[in-house]
């Protein structure tokens, strides 16, 4: 497993609650919930200042019971990524400089969450991300500007304009997406074999390898 030479390629650590923060906002999806439980579960003093938004069907009573037992200050189950992001925007609009954001889930979920937090003025250092789940990437076609979620391979065909795209490690924090660039501009149709995207190393909570 190699570290990408592209420095914008995000690297993910383990969630580690910042004890000095006044408010903790966590957003989890799928296996990301376990990351939250592992990091926060034994910290009741922090949980009472924590808002948890989890993507799941709100009518899942068993899950709701499990989440309520955590003892967070405020709990929100949202059925989809879109509805979770709407909730996150509302929570951040009332947050102050003492707030920290924690996100855990698929890679193509982490990107848009971070992009939203940066957009509303949160500092990059106030956002922690743990990658749990799919390696799928969110890719923007640099030609038609369309976003493609759940991209597992490179090259792949843009779902908006049909261009054959090389998935680069170049990542835009503002867009929360990787860059897809035409791969057969010189010889249309001459596309190299498809490869599965490789995972990146997991870091300690503190920094880069």
């Amino acid at each position, binding site marked *: 497993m190699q570290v990408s030479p592209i420095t914008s390629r995000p690297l993910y650590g383990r969630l580690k609650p*910042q004890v*000095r*923060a*006044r*408010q903790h906002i966590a957003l989890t999806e799928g296996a990301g919930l376990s990351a939250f439980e592992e990091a926060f579960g034994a910290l009741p003093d922090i949980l009472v200042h924590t808002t948890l938004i989890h993507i799941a069907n709100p009518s899942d009573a068993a899950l709701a019971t499990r989440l309520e037992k955590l003892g967070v200050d405020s709990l929100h189950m949202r059925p989809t990524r879109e509805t979770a992001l709407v909730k996150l925007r509302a929570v*951040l609009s009332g*947050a*102050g*400089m*003492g*707030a*920290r954001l924690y996100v855990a889930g698929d890679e193509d979920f982490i990107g848009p969450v971070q992009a939203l937090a940066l957009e*509303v*003025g*949160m*500092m*990059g*250092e*106030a956002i922690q991300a743990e990658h749990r789940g799919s390696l799928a990437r969110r890719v923007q076609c640099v030609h038609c500007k369309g976003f493609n979620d759940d991209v597992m391979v490179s090259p792949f065909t843009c779902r908006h304009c049909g261009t054959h795209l090389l998935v680069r490690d170049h990542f835009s924090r503002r867009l929360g997406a990787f860059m897809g660039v035409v791969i057969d501009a010189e010889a249309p149709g001459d596309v190299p074999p498809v490869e599965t995207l490789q995972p990146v190393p997991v870091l300690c909570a503190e920094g880069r390898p």
Partner: protein
Amino acid sequence: MSGGFPVMVAAAEQAANGVKKLRFVRTDGAALPPYSAGAHVVLTLEGPQRTFRNAYSLLGTTLEGGAYEVAVQRAAESRGGSAFVHEMLQEGAHLTISAPLNLFSLNHTGRHHVLVAGGIGITAIHAMAEELAMRGASYELHYAMRDEASGAFTQALLSRHGNKVRFYVSAKGERFAVSQALRHQPLGTHLYVCGPERMIDGVLADARAEGWPEGALHAERFAAPAGGEPFMVRLARSGITLKVGEHQSLLEAIEDAGVDAPCLCRGGACGQCETTVLEADGELQHHDHYLSQKERESGAKIMTCMSRLRGRELVLDL
């Protein structure tokens, strides 16, 4: 540090008790270069006994017609520089001024800006508030002073910034409640503090306790280099041996010996004067804000503008 501009004092006035405001224009009539709020310059002051090089924040804005203004507080324990400015620098005096340097600039991606000044620290903060007002940005200004007579620019600040300004006069028992002011600041707020060392440390500690991320905290310290016992320095490359006096900084002694040593801010912040220590017969006393704890412990580097040796002799790679 060589270079700079020959300037003359175009105006000199008392801005408050113990605070003198000076306006400089270039001797050759050309405009001084523009600068951004938070920038400072180094004045080279040729005193009767020795040369002083002191850093001062620039006041106002770059739109002052190519002139620079500074406000100098007479230091209670002046090493001679501020006393010289107060007693000797009158209209028409000639001196050399460095190009402006900004180590305390506004973060213009900020959504809101909290400016905090203590005493003469108002000079940099004054310029920042002006720049924010001109840009139509969101800001607030907190200005703590000992008494009303020593608070410079209070009337100008009030008329320019209105209810965005709060004054705290310690002689009247007023205190700036930092935690309260910081607790409900929205995401995207930046904090800027300029004033006495102890005040800066206190405000930053309160901000950290409120959970503020480091990147939102900005401070500028203009501590004068601490004096200490004299010691000897050998500059290995130049083959010069010199003595650093009790009230002299290492950098000043090197400059007096005619060596053009690297430096910029003269306040231990910018890192320009980092110098390799070859030998030290004694204990390095680090007073800068640049070297990490690890670098300090290694004993391999010293910032000549602020730090010194307690001991006999220091050998530098200069």
